[in-house]
């Protein structure tokens, strides 16, 4: 809700107290998650200044966070519309099968890239078919396709890894994992696509419809909103985002392995919910997801740099997730009155 309001009308007749309250209720989630990120960063910087005052760790974050962050963007759209996709971590690998197949026969990196994105779209459409035509809840369908896509990937490449050929010099390679004024392209894509998703969700018909569908599906039907079409589009976009992220991952390490993306399911979901998107649908925040991805993605390296034992990671992980979602819930309850 908060992100829908970018330029509020001047509240002339409001008392100062009331207007600040309205302002707060709109921005609370974003403010909360942003200050949480700053706080965690501050703690890490104080405890491990050698690591956090140098650019190397930020370059590393900028490369790795977008891998699950891009999927989190797609998930944000789906969750706002009341759906979910748990299969993206498998689509992450399956898309690259298209690249391997096409690029290794045609020697065209561009065609390989297109094949990867097409497989991502197809994976999303396949999910959407079961959800909207057969009528199975998305949670259940995508648990199934998570196994199905991963299995399909393993079968198609016979469980083997592949070294990527000719990606370094290709324009597509440089666009996906090169540098732009020293900034990793993964991060640039993450930013660009986050802005795009924001426009789609808050300034486009599709996002308007997605919000209503997730908020009150009966109302959406009564008011003539194209429910099925909207849901299908969001599933396809999420599939494409996952395939794109998987491709970046492969291009970065110049290698494709069929288990890639395996650990990204929970971090991506955590980024969405830590960001402040409602699990019940109808309300989400793209900025929250963006910041949430860096919060979730930053903790692990930070804990190691601070010198704590590695197995504290999960405790702190879980603690931060619980704290963040509790704060969102409390703020929402307090300010929606």
């Amino acid at each position: 809700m908060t992100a829908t309001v970018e330029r509020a009308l001047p509240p002339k007749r409001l008392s100062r107290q009331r207007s600040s309250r309205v302002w707060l209720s709109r921005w609370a989630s974003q403010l909360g998650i942003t200050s949480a990120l700053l706080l965690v960063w501050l703690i890490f910087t104080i405890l491990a200044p050698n690591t956090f005052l140098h650019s190397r760790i930020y370059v590393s974050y900028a490369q790795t966070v977008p891998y699950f962050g891009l999927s989190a963007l797609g998930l944000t759209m789906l969750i706002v519309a009341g759906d979910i996709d748990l299969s993206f971590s498998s689509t992450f690998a399956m898309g690259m099968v298209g690249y391997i197949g096409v690029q290794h026969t045609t020697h065209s990196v561009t065609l390989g890239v297109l094949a990867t994105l097409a497989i991502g779209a197809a994976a999303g459409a396949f999910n959407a078919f079961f959800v909207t035509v057969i009528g199975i809840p998305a949670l259940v369908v995508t648990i199934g396709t998570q196994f199905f896509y991963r299995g399909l990937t393993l079968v198609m490449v016979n469980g083997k890894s592949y070294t990527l050929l000719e990606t370094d010099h290709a324009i597509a390679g440089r666009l996906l994992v090169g540098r732009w004024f020293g900034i990793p392209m993964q991060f640039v894509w993450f930013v660009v696509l986050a802005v795009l998703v924001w426009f789609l969700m808050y300034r486009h018909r599709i996002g308007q419809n997605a919000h209503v569908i997730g908020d009150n599906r009966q109302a959406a039907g009564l008011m003539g909103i194209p429910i099925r079409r909207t849901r299908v589009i969001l599933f396809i976009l999420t599939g494409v985002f996952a395939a794109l992220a998987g491709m970046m991952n492969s291009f970065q390490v110049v290698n494709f392995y069929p288990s890639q993306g395996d650990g990204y399911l929970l971090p991506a979901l955590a980024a969405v919910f830590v960001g402040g998107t409602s699990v019940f649908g109808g309300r989400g925040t793209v900025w929250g997801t963006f910041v949430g991805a860096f919060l979730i993605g930053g903790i692990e390296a930070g804990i190691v740099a601070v010198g704590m034992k590695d197995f504290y990671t999960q405790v702190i992980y879980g603690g931060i997730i619980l704290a963040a979602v509790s704060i969102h819930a409390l703020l929402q309850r307090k300010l929606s009155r």
Partner: protein
Amino acid sequence: MTTASTDPAAAADPILELRHVSKSFGGVHALHDVSFRLEAGQVLGLVGDNGAGKSTLIKIITGYHQPDSGELLFNGTVVNDLTVPKARALGVETVYQERALADQQSLWRNIFMGRPITRPGGFLDVRAMRRVTKELMGESMGFTSAILTPDTPVTGLSGGERQGLAIVRALHFEADLIILDEPTMGLSLSETEKCLNFVRDIKAAGKSAIFIDHNIFHVHSVSDQIVIIDRGTVAGCFPTKQYSQEELTSIMRQVAATGGYNEPDRELKSGGVL
């Protein structure tokens, strides 16, 4: 069609006519052989118990459900395969009470639900929608509370304010036929009176309305014609002027007890039932 051509008084086609409409869900008859007509500029009151089929009937007229058999005529023309957007294009607007509001969304998103003002490419013209909402809030909804802005989510609204929003949304899009589905449910006395005045305004503006309620007193005070629905069929069709509230109440009791109504001593003067 024959009714329109043989009766010189009904020179203009009725704005809406239902002919032998039936609908069942999983073998259960929700509606059976329902026929009635609504002349332009009139208000039709639709009354019946819970489960009588009022909601199904409304959803058929608005294109949400499609009838299994029977015909719908808008301005004398048979319309097949009615959908919600198609019905809206024909000038049918529905006030579904708060069921058709999205609670977490802002006022302007609710007003423009399903048909936003867009620029080429489907991008929203948010500024225009905020402005129109602001105008509607001041002029039509009578929202005076300073804390309400076009960006306020619907969650913060009272029952009456929600009703106002739903009604204003329907009115904004220049409908010829406005359907109000139990608009007085859950409203306070003064809010109910406001709502009934709104129905009178529709008629005064030369538009037609279908007003669904199970309170015969509300319906009686604003309608030209009352159709009683019972167990999926039309139990009777009564010109409001010729019946007092007491008479209609006893008719409704009889209908509820016996499933039908036989006029004992006077002819039905309206050609409501075909």
